[in-house]
Structures are given as structure tokens and as C-alpha cells.
């Protein structure tokens, strides 16, 4: 009925690239065109209260074509790789181009790009898809059981996920790129309940643990069973802990919370499509408008933020973006000053018009969440660089930072997050906090929250831990675009301190 040409582990790169080239060859004359054939597979295991409640294996194969003609884009995607299916997909794309042309007011321009013929494969030690399922289940059930440290434990959960994306990209400028990207993740999540009180603790991070472009070695290194009891005990202790006090205090954020702070207040704010208004209809715009480039004081002079798609293991690490632009490292904020956006070939051309001082090409951040979605600017690994490596400031240790704090709050592991549609006003909640008094970590605090305005917050940063405490956290659930796309992104961070932050903004 429909022609299938193979799945994931059986996929032959040469055949798939030829298929992509065949599709490209059928596209009538255009200013530019590219084709992506994508073969995705994933497996998910989720346990709850000692039972494997989700055990799933998913596969999806399809392709898309992107045509730039008469100054407008047309995009279509289909599962149907038959000759007839491809013809229909191209025909539909051309009809879309025609409809868009009818009301156009300006032409899309692309920046220059040299053709690239190459392959990229995520370096992994142990392919997660080759590890016996029995072993994975055993690891998770042991981690699930290890959480039962008290009769106050209401729910125990453990999860594992692995994903493989084989992407075959060809374009009308002559690029031909195949990539094999693998990412893996795992974690535990304990819920303790006592009457109206409910508390959670997760290891090593909330929302499905740690995720990286690595193999099963990540899951082994996490040692879920060993660490789960400590976090489960904390969930129980939180039930009777004091509520986080309200006030303006020095705030130390653990690296797993800082990762989401970076994601929301820097990562989304530097997306050039958002800045140019192309996301206004959904997620909003950004306060980092183009006249602020090279002169806006985003943070204090020890704040250095990068977009780096080349970090080993980062969840936003790859060889080439979905426009065929090589992975890159870019300073977004250097010594506190706003320096750059994350860009695509068409938005960067627009930026050249708006700010003549800007003369860079696309920094390669365009990705799509599947074959059925339009590639768009997405965070790669957006990082707060470790203290003491660029400009002034020193490489603190967390112990030193706490010892240097007279009164403050140390918060860890995200629980809630929200930010306005220009990325100014944010509020975060974490699973746990501790009070710092006279340089010493004191009582545990429940229901911690903090709130701020992005540039004021980053300008208050006065200490950042060094590389030994720097971790690249995975954020696999970043939503953007219409139709919606959920992308996997990474964030390198080490604990950092912020002065006089509004803490304990909600009481319950």
C-alpha cells in the first residue's frame, strides 16, 4: 500500500541519501530547496510504585521538502515515500508557495553557505538500543524500590528514555549530510504526602532526570538505585520543614536550577526569529532588540554566556543544523555585554539589514523536532561559562561560596517556572532549599520560590563556581512554534550567587 524503505537500525545511509537526492531532483526550479529524510526511534520505560507502567518502543520515518521560490517559503512533509507520494508532496509545496506569494510584502533572503558533504555520529560508548530491555527494567525497578524509605512515601517513580535520529539532508547548493544522533536519559522522582502536604524530590534532576547525547553509559554512571534513597528521605523531611522565608536575600542557585534559569531568561531571549517578531503569534517576542547588540549590559562583568553545539555530551550537540550549517560555539554575552543571537540563514540576512555592524553568518542553530516539522531556530547548548575562565572573577567552589555568604538561601532542582512573553519577569520554584547563616548551610526549607527581572537579576550575579562543578544539563522538553515542536536542548552551568533577590514570593 505504501512504500517503506527501511527503519532505523536497518537503515542504509547511501540508500536514504539517494532517496533524498531523488526527491530533490524532482523539485522544479526554485531559488533554493532542501530535503530531509528523517528516521526516528525511541524507547521509553516508566515505573511507578514498583510496576513498569510504560514500556514503549516507537518508530517514525518520513521526509520534508522546503522550497524558497519567488521570495517565499513553502514546506510540506509526508510519511509516503512512494514516487506518487513524493510528487503529491512537491505539488502541495508549490501550491503553498503560490498562496504565500499572493500577499507577500518582502522577499526572504538567505546568507551564503558553502556546500558540505559529510557525516556525523554522536560518540557513544554503549548503544542504548543494544542493551537488553530486561537489564533496563531491572535498573529502574531497583531504583523505584530504593525510594521506599518511609510510609510517608506516596509515589515512587523511575524513568529511562533513549532516542535515535537518523537525518539525511540534501540541498540545492550541493550539500549532502547524514547524521546519527543518539540521546539517553534517566532519573527518579519521589512524592511524599502527609495530609494536605505534598513534596517531591527527584534525582539527578526533575522532569525525567538527566539527558545527554550519550549512550547507556550515562544511565550506568547515574547509579539510580544508590542515590535514590537520599532524595526520597529529603522528600519526607520536606513535609515537616520550615517554609522558605520571604525577603530580599542573597541567592545561590544549584547548577540544575540555573540550567532552567539560563534556558528561560537567556536562551529564549536570544532567539533571533523571536526578536524579529516571527514568534509573536505564540510564544511572544524578546526584550533583546537589535539596537541592544554589542552595548546592552545583560549581566554583571563576570557573566559569560555561550551557545555551543560542540560540547561533548550536551543535549544540544550535533554535527550540522537542519539547514546544513556546521555546529558552532558563539558568545552571546561576554563579560556582561550582549554580543549575539542564535540565528538561521534567513533571519541573519534580515539582521544584516537592521544592524549594519553585524556581519556574521548563521551560527547554525536551526533544528526541527521531527520530519513533519519546519526547521526553526532552537537552543543548542546555552551555557553560563564557569567562573574564572574569561575576564574578571574567580573560579569559586560551592563550599567557598556558602562560606562567603552571611545570610542567604541555596535552592536546588526546578519545580515550577514561568516568564513573561518578552522574557523580563520570571518566577521559579524549586524542590528544596537550605538557609545559609554566617557562612554555614542550615535548616532545610520547603516551597522555595524566587522572582526577578532578567537583566537586573543577571547584573546581580557576583560569584560563579568553576569548571569542577560545571555540569551540562539536558532540557528535553523545550516547546516552541506553531505547529508545536518539542526540542532537546542543553545547558552548562555551575552554581552561582545572585545578590538581593526576591525570595519566598508565594506562601503555602
Amino acid at each position, binding site marked *: 500500500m505504501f512504500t517503506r524503505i527501511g527503519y532505523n537500525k536497518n537503515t542504509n545511509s547511501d540508500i536514504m541519501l539517494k532517496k533524498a537526492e531523488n526527491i530533490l531532483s524532482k523539485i522544479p526550479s526554485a531559488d533554493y530547496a532542501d530535503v530531509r529524510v528523517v528516521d526516528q526511534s525511541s524507547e521509553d520505560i516508566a515505573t511507578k510504585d514498583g510496576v513498569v507502567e510504560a514500556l514503549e518502543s516507537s518508530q517514525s520515518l518520513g521526509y520534508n521538502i522546503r522550497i524558497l521560490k519567488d521570495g517565499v517559503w513553502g514546506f510540506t512533509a509526508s510519511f509516503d515515500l512512494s514516487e506518487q507520494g513524493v510528487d503529491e508532496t512537491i505539488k502541495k509545496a508549490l501550491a503553498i508557495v503560490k498562496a504565500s506569494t499572493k500577499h507577500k510584502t518582502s522577499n526572504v533572503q538567505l546568507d551564503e553557505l558553502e556546500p558540505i558533504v559529510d557525516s556525523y555520529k554522536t560518540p557513544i560508548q554503549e548503544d542504548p538500543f543494544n542493551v537488553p530491555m530486561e537489564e533496563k527494567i531491572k535498573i529502574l525497578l531497583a531504583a523505584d524500590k530504593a525510594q521506599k524509605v518511609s510510609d510517608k512515601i506516596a509515589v515512587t517513580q523511575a524513568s529511562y528514555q533513549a532516542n535515535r535520529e537518523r537525518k539525511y539532508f540534501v540541498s540545492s547548493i550541493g550539500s549532502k549530510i547524514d547524521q546519527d544522533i543518539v540521546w539517553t536519559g534517566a532519573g527518579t522522582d519521589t512524592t511524599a504526602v502527609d495530609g494536605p502536604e505534598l513534596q517531591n524530590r527527584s534525582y539527578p534532576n526533575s522532569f525525567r532526570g538527566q539527558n545527554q547525547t550519550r549512550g547507556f553509559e550515562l544511565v550506568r554512571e547515574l547509579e539510580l538505585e544508590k542515590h535514590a534513597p537520599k532524595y526520597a528521605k529529603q522528600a519526607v523531611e520536606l513535609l515537616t520543614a520550615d517554609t522558605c522565608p520571604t525577603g530580599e536575600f542573597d541567592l545561590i542557585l544549584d547548577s540544575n536550577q540555573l540550567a532552567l534559569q539560563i534556558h528561560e531568561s537567556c536562551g529564549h531571549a536570544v532567539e533571533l526569529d523571536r526578536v524579529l*517578531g516571527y514568534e509573536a503569534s505564540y510564544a511572544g517576542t524578546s526584550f533583546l532588540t537589535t539596537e541592544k547588540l554589542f552595548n546592552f549590559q545583560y549581566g554583571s562583568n563576570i557573566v559569560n554566556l555561550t551557545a555551543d553545539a560542540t560540547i561533548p555530551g550536551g543535549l544540544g550537540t550535533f554535527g550540522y543544523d537542519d539547514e546544513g550549517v556546521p555546529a558552532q560555539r558563539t558568545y552571546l554575552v561576554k563579560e556582561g555585554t550582549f554580543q549575539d543571537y542564535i540565528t538561521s540563514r534567513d533571519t541573519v540576512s534580515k539582521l544584516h539589514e537592521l544592524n549594519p555592524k553585524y556581519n556574521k553568518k548563521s551560527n547554525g542553530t536551526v533544528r526541527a523536532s521531527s520530519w513533519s516539522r519546519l526547521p526553526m531556530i532552537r537552543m543548542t547548548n546555552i551555557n553560563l561559562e564557569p567562573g574564572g575562565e574569561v575576564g574578571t572573577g574567580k573560579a569559586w567552589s560551592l563550599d567557598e561560596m556558602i562560606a562567603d555568604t552571611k545570610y542567604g538561601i541555596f535552592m536546588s532542582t526546578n519545580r515550577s517556572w514561568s516568564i513573561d512573553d518578552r522574557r523580563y519577569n520570571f*518566577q521559579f520554584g524549586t524542590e528544596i532549599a537550605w538557609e545559609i547563616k554566617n557562612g554555614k548551610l542550615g535548616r532545610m526549607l520547603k*516551597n522555595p520560590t524566587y522572582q526577578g527581572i532578567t537583566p537586573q537579576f543577571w547584573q546581580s550575579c557576583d560569584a560563579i563556581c568553576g569548571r569542577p562543578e560545571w555540569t551540562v544539563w539536558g532540557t528535553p522538553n523545550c516547546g516552541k512554534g506553531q*505547529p508545536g515542536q518539542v526540542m532537546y536542548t542543553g545547558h552548562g552551568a555551575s552554581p552561582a550567587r545572585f545578590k538581593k533577590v526576591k525570595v519566598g*514570593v508565594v506562601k503555602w
Partner: protein
Amino acid sequence: MLGEEKLNQIAEKALSFSKAEQTEVVLSVSGNALTRFANNQIHQNVAWKNLGISARVIIDKKTHLRKGSGGQVGVASTNAFDTESLKDVMARATELASLQEPDPGFVSLPKPQKIEKVSDDIYHATEEEMSDGAHTVIKKAMKENLIASGAYANDVSELAVANSLGVWAYHAGSSCNLSAIVLGIDSSGFAADVARNPDEVDAELVAETAVQKTLESKNPQDIEPGGYEVILEPQAVSEMMAFFQWYGPNARIYHEGASPLSDQMGKQVFGKNITIIDDPFHESVFPMPFDFEGQPKKAMTFIKNGVLENIAYDSYHALKYHHKNTGHALPAPNTMGPIPLHMYIAAGDKTRDEMIKNVKRGLLVTRLWYVRVLNPKMLNVTGMTRDATFLIENGKIIRPVKNLRFNQSIPEALNNVVGIENKLTPLASFEGEMISLAPTLHISKWEFSSATLF
């Protein structure tokens, strides 16, 4: 689209490849298009089609199922219907099931039930219709020197569920959704319309409303955060209630003790003026006669005059907790629990203008943004106002104000409702998949905790 007969053949064929004790297949076929505009022109114009099969296989290698103490469940999916792919998906699901420990909570897949037939009419919007809809908004915005953005989505889909116990259910449907956010120098306005048929989408009204909101919210002034009366327009009510859908009448969370409704059955949980209904056949929503296990849906009342009367169950939680299945299953494997997809607050007896007149000092909120749960048990949420917020004094809209952050308990809000609009507005999510209805609400107290800069 493939049609019921073809999908039935595929389902039968797939089921024939399973040797398991029980097997279920969920088939989907979809064709989607979305025309997106920004900066007064179309910038993304996309169409895609896909199909999918998800197989849930239950085996009884360890003989727990026949003793009533749990089956071994595995789920696999793919996006192809050819013979090789159907065999492969069934083999993968079976292999996964064989590695499972029995789930003591799993008793059986559901048996066939009579399903009410609803219209399977579908409507495809053409590229021109969608482009013209976008242009209607753009034209009106440009006339006022404003900037239009938005999206016109058309979704057409078929869903079929079959299992080895004889369940067969099929439904086709479609939706068209035009949403717009119009931007001024220091203001913005939102409007949307949703319908089954592109002819019923009122692009002129969407354009007019969004432009008007933008003009009216020009030059917003600072306002102190604090407790205010609020008029929440339907989009804001829908955004508030989305989390109640997940954490409220959900059997899984209810029985875990993690819902604000846990242990409250039969008790007064909200104000006496609050009735919350789940009606998959309401004339203004997109009908859905069965759930993802092929079990019939029906209209039911969760909250009647503030009293908790029912919660949502799927077959797993119904059998586990000895309750009747209410037809609220989501696709397997489902770790979120049964969730009502057609839930709304019943209309009241006031007009929007009457409610505004009753406000002494409060805020008119067009919509909410980035709403997130702080604590599911208390269902307190945080979020921002967005796309036109106004100060009301002594029953009159005085001026636009800058956006505010709120921290608010939803149960508290539903205990403080002092006015409910006498009509319901159909609403779509931004992608058009989840349709809901909402009235405008007048709530006597809503906690705003901080301000933003615009």
C-alpha cells in the same frame, strides 16, 4: 483520509498478527496545514500528513492475568500500515510485554460498548482560504499602522480503535482555527475563532477584535500588584482551567491523594454557582464519541452547584478502583491518568458588560500566559497576564495597564466567582487539537504578586 472500511481491514490484519491473550490497536490518519503570519506577511506556510498505529499487547506468560492479578503489557508504535510494518509493530509490543512483570492493577482491556454515532464530516481548507484568512487580519492591522501575527490551522484526522475482545470504534473530524495577536508600539491584542468548516471562521471578527484590543491597550500604565477583583475573559478562563483538567477530576491523581479534589467526593468544593461539565457532544465543541480504548463517551457533570459528583476514569483505573469506566482513556501507555478533554464551566446569567459594571476596582484580563502549577495538591498556579489588560473602576474600564504576574489558587478562585457570563465561547488551543468552551468570569479576588515592564 482512508475511511472506516479500509482502517477496519488494517486493524483486523494487525490483530491477526498477534498471538497474545489480549491485543489493542489504535490507528490514526492525519492531514494538517498551518499558515503562519508575522510582521504583516505570511512567513511560515506548512502542510504535513502522517498515519500511525500503536499496538498494546497483553500477555500472560506468568499466569497472573487469568488469576486476576495483572497482565504483562507492552506498547509499540510506527507510522506505516504495510504488512511488514504491522507484523513488526506487533512483534515489538509482544517482546516488550514478555519482559514485563505483571501489573497488578491491570485486569483486562475493555469489552465492546455501544457507541453513539456522530457526524464524520470533514472539511479541508485550501491554501488560498488560509492565506486569505491571514490577509484579512494583516490588512486590518496595516490600516491602523499595527503589526499582525497569527496562524490559521486546519486539522483533519481519523481515529480508529480495535481490540481482540471485539471493540471497534471509528471517527473522523476536522477543525479550522484562526488566531491573531496584533502588535502596536506598546500594546497587543488577541482574538481567535474556531469552527469545523473554513466557511464558518469569521476572519473579519478576529481581525476587528484583535486590532481593537491593541488600540484600546495603547500606552499602558503601571499598576501596583496586589489583590484585585478580576474579569477573566473566556481565553483566560480556559488557560486557568487547563490545569484543573489535569489535576482535578483525574482518577489517578485523585486516588494518589495528590489532587485538590482527593477525598472530597460529595462535598462542597467550590462556590454554589459553579457547575463543571464534560460534554463531548456539546453543539459548540468537536464531538468525540469514544476514548482511546474505544469506550463510549457521554456527557457528565463533575461538579454540580459546587459539589464534587464525579471524576474521570479509564478502564485501568476503573477496574483498579472498582468504579465504572467513564470513557476518558488517553493513548497507551498513559502515565498521566484519565483526563477530560471536553470540560467547561456551565454558563451563568450575566452579560460581560453587566459583570464589568459590578466591579468596584479590578482588572479586565484578556488572557493568561505561561501558567504553571506550584503545588498540584493545592492547585496554586503562577503566570502572567498578556495581550491587553485594563483597570476597571466603579463599573467602567478606565485605562490599560502593564502586565502583572499572579500567584493564585484555582480552588480559591472557583470559590470566589461572583458572576458567570450567560454564554460560552468555543476556544481552540494554538494547535487546534483540544477544543474547549468558557464563559467570562467575575472573580472577587485574584492575587497579583509582581509587575513587568510592559
